């Protein structure tokens, strides 16, 4: 690699032009409008088909999260955040973790072990397979989708100034 510096590229700065910098682009918006339903469906396909083919909840959840990101890129983060309310993201992430634990804990309530899927078959006649599907679809996928989109919104919003919350009220 030569020492010639590729410095002629446009100076890219982002400190000042934060949220107002969004520019509508008809091309991107209409392309995303076409693609987003497909990628969302594909995410769900991976998620539910993981038991029989490569892929699974982690990948599926990531694709679903990426779809949200795609929409946010095309239509602007603020409007996406309004559409997908913060509550949804929290419920996905925290709810997913809680659901995963719950699927594991229910057998323990009956004295079986944590995540003992065959217990569901013995006690309720639910096939073992559905236990596996449950932690994948109810646990991992929502966490991944929620955290991916949540991270996106949080990072886009940036840090709060430090002084605001370290107040001495109690």
């Amino acid at each position, binding site marked *: 690699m030569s020492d010639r510096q590729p410095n002629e590229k446009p100076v890219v700065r982002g400190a000042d032009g934060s949220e107002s910098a969004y520019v509508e682009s008809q091309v991107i918006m209409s392309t995303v409008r076409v693609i987003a339903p497909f990628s969302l469906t594909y995410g769900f396909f991976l998620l539910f088909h993981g038991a029989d083919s490569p892929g699974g909840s982690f990948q599926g959840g990531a694709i679903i999260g*990426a779809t949200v990101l795609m929409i946010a890129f095309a239509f602007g983060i603020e409007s996406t955040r309004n559409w997908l309310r913060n509550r949804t993201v929290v419920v996905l992430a925290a709810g997913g973790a809680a659901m995963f634990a719950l699927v594991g804990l229910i057998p323990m309530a009956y004295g079986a072990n944590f995540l003992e899927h065959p217990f569901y078959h013995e006690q309720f006649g639910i096939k073992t397979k559905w236990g596996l599907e449950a932690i994948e679809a109810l646990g991992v996928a929502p966490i991944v989708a929620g955290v*991916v989109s949540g991270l*996106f919104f949080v990072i886009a919003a940036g840090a709060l100034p430090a002084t605001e919350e370290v107040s001495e009220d109690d």
Partner: protein
Amino acid sequence: MVSAFGIALFGFVLATALATALLRDILAVIIVFAAYSLGMALFYAFLLAPDVAMTEAAIGAGVTTLLLLLTIATTVREEPGIAIERPNLPALVVFGGLLVVMIGTVTQFPALGSRNAPVWSNPEVTQYYLEHSYKDTKVHNAVTAVLAGYRGFDTFGEAVVVFAAGISTLVVLGREVFTRE
């Protein structure tokens, strides 16, 4: 032909990894890193680990790139004065040491795809999975059976790792984002 493909792919991954480490301009590094992810996903696919390849494709190439871009968009980015990072001596020494150890030990590895490798031949773990996973779970993909069944607790832990990453980001950025609606 298999080895020719492997060597070409390896060359590409090595080039992208070096470029990621050495380029100075952050935006360029992010783009190069995405290319590295592409190469790694191809590698996993080539080694017949489609689940890992898909994860690398979805997370490494897709989500990570976007989050990194977003991060440099919301922070101040300085113009690098130089194009190529000048590696510093202690780092090179550590790197060299690690390289020697890795190359020295890699020669001891069982051959790729060897049926005698303990990882494969161990009758009480891997072979057990292959024999019993369908009987136990009625799931065709043995990887899913291991991930959600036999080693389900690891998956629980990894899901919590993802959750913890989200929480940590909230804590670091001081956001109670979700209480204001």
